């Protein structure tokens, strides 16, 4: 056997993950067996508690940009979106209502806020829905700590235009509803800004 060569067989490795389980909705009250309050489908321990630590060493889904809970700069980092390099953060303060869609887009991309001078944008519809907590009153699904936005009497522009009706854009209404309206509409409507942060250790840029 001296001259024989053997090659060790290796088991095929599993494909690298290319996605993640959707987050929980936040509903924890069940109204019948099999509903979401019963099953609580989704990732993480709860809507606001991660299954494992964020880079700051705690399981808080939401922190400020320093990993704490003070939110001095009114920036909320959502660690459920962390991919190992980047994470999504939201500006939790709203500008005054009364802005049409184009002006809102212009304003959002020019935003300098909390020491972060570039990179802001208006949330798209999924970035809004990511924040919606279906465990709080339907009138104001963004009114939970630390988001604390009461949107029960105002509309929120999204960055999404209707395919096939490009004069209109999607908005999120009171009661957590989603609809669309002409982009020139400007009554009782505002928007939320968000930004992708680069994470290096515990430093966000």
């Amino acid at each position, binding site marked *: 056997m001296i001259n024989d060569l053997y090659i060790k067989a290796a088991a095929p490795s599993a494909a690298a993950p290319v996605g993640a389980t959707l987050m929980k909705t936040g509903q*924890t*009250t*069940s*109204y*019948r*067996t099999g509903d979401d*309050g*019963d099953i609580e489908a989704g990732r993480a321990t709860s809507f606001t508690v991660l299954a494992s630590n964020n880079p700051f060493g705690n399981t808080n889904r939401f922190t400020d940009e320093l990993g704490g809970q003070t939110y001095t700069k009114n920036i909320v980092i959502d660690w459920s979106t962390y991919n190992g390099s980047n994470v999504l953060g939201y500006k939790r303060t709203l500008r005054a209502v009364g802005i049409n869609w184009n002006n809102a887009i212009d304003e959002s991309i020019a935003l300098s806020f909390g020491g972060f001078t570039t990179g802001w944008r208006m949330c798209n519809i999924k970035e809004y829905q990511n924040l919606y907590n279906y465990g709080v009153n339907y009138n104001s699904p963004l009114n939970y700590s630390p988001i604390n936005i009461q949107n029960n009497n105002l509309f929120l522009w999204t960055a999404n235009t209707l395919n096939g009706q490009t004069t209109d854009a999607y908005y999120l209404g009171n009661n957590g509803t989603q609809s669309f309206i002409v982009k020139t509409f400007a009554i009782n409507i505002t928007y939320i800004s968000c930004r992708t942060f680069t994470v290096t250790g515990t430093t966000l840029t």
Partner: protein
Amino acid sequence: MTYKFSQFSVEIVNPRIEVLVIHDTIAKRTCSVDVLLTTETANFGLSLDGFTYVNDWNDEEVELWTLTELSKYEV
């Protein structure tokens, strides 16, 4: 106290009972009640219909009626 409702496959044991919302249909002089039953492991929401009144109602009357209605589901 243990309760069993048809919409839930489990029995609800010793819940904390909380009347969340009272919906008053003035034209019919009836109310329905949204109730939250909380246990250590899960929360259960249900609606009870059928509270009636003559001129007016108060919270105590509705809460008492709620407990009476819930007793129909005791096991």
